[in-house]
């Protein structure tokens, strides 16, 4: 046993060591390319096109100090939360209806399947015609992007409810409403929560795309602004903020899922 434990610690140690070495090498390579290679190729534009790691950190400190970063992050986050919130109150009821009623599924399925393949970002020009450059346009792109993952997961959740559970409830005299409230909804909940997590993740991607074209605030707008100023340090910093925020949202929802539904494997997927 002691031998096995030793081998295990050894493996963890090797993993940490290899990971740290490769991260340090990558940082050194970045620094090297930025200080030696790029200036030789692009002369005085080098700093604007390809910053050093230090420059990005410095810009980060500056943007945090002025409050700009927090302000833009909050603008994006607010739009995503509103968009996904609208999805939650529309897609879940629709999914429950489509999943539990066969005639409604036959009626609503084909129109939904016709709309679904349209790439959500292809809606950007049309929503710009409808809503102009506004919060509403950004939120509508989040809504369109986040709608189908939650809808499909809710339908899958309802359709995967164990037959014996619904039969047992029906035998005991449950009405349709009770069936939905006490059997179908709890059984479908793990799927629904996974759907919300997927929707939030995709919504976070969509908001960046929407803000690149049609916004003056938000992280997407911050990147696009920095591009027109040719400030690659600010671009990279905003990208890092987008990645970090996305990871935080995802991990937060996973933790919530584990907490609320310890029996569901979804939190670990």
């Amino acid at each position, binding site marked *: 046993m002691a031998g096995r434990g030793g081998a295990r610690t050894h493996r963890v140690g*090797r*993993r940490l060591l*290899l*990971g*740290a*070495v*490769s*991260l340090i090498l*990558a940082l050194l390579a970045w620094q090297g390319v930025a200080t030696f290679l790029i200036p030789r190729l692009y002369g005085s534009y080098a700093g604007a*096109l*390809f910053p050093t790691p230090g420059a990005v950190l410095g810009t980060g400190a500056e943007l945090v100090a002025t409050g700009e970063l927090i302000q833009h992050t909050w603008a994006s986050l607010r739009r995503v939360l509103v968009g996904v919130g609208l999805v939650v109150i529309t897609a879940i009821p629709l999914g429950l209806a489509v999943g539990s009623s*066969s*005639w409604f*599924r*036959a*009626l*609503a*399925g*084909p*129109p939904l*399947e*016709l*709309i679904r*393949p*349209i*790439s*959500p*970002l*292809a*809606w*950007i*020009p*049309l929503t*710009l*015609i*409808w809503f102009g450059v506004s919060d509403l346009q950004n939120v509508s792109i989040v809504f369109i992007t986040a709608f189908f993952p939650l809808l499909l997961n809710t339908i899958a959740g309802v359709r995967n409810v164990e037959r014996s559970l619904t039969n047992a409830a029906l035998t005991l005299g449950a009405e349709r409403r009770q069936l939905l409230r006490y059997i179908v909804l709890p059984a479908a909940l793990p799927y629904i929560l996974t759907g919300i997590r997927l929707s939030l993740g995709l919504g*976070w*991607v969509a908001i*960046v*795309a929407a803000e*690149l*074209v049609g916004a003056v605030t938000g*992280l*997407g707008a911050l*990147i*696009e602004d*920095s*591009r027109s100023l*040719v400030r*690659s340090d600010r*671009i*990279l910093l*905003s*990208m*890092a903020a*987008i*990645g*970090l925020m*996305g*990871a935080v949202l995802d991990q937060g929802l996973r933790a919530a899922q584990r907490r609320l539904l310890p029996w569901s494997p979804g939190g670990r997927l």
Partner: protein
Amino acid sequence: MSRADTAANSGTRGSGEGLLRVAGVLLLLGVWWALASLVLPQMGEVAAKSLPSPWAVAERLVELAASGELLVHALKTLQRIATAFAIVLLTAIPLGVLMGWSETLRFALDPLLELLRPIPPIAWIPLSILWLGVGDAQKVYIICFAAFFPLLVNTMVGVRHVNPSLVAAASTLGASRGQILFRVVLPAASPFVFAGMRIAFGIGWMALVGAEVAAALAGLGYMIMAMRQGFDSAGVVAGMVVIGVLGFCFDVGLRRLHRWLAPWHLEFTQV
């Protein structure tokens, strides 16, 4: 709607369900037509122009196809996705196999990939424009970035999920490392690789549309963005329809290919 459903519907509760399906599509078209032709024109000229009727879209689609404009942009988009997909297949699959096969490589590259992976491909658009301009190279870069990680991770997971007793059996029978890789590991991992290809294509397609909408000089995304500037909403919707149809065809095609190449792995084709 799964395959089993459709089969059951056409059999037992045949025509009633079929009628409802047709009714659903007619309802969608009807609401759309009523909004475009009856409701919005009452609300002023701008509102009337903001949503074209289904017929206006169909007319515009025929017009765009006949003038050749649609073909030019569609070919540009297809050429970009084909180039990028070739690059991703040739890099992500070998690297995924190596990372699944060698623990050292996996331990070394994992933290780097985990740092890059949460950054959405769309967020690379502005930086890639600074580096590469708004032409084909930048679009290919964005698709590659989007499609690379799903395929890499799926390939790696597939290689790691190969039943070790299969590998042990092959080496007991005297197979070389190369034989084990090509005759045992790769076939066993292929369902994961195909599933990864479908996910990679879906994400790559979305990223390409985003990149073309954000900044381009050609391509379907550019076409609809340019039409938006001219307030040509019928053209915009016609372009959206083409983008949807192309994406749908590719997904079905990849699913077919998967079923044809790995028919023993049916549960994956249902996902």
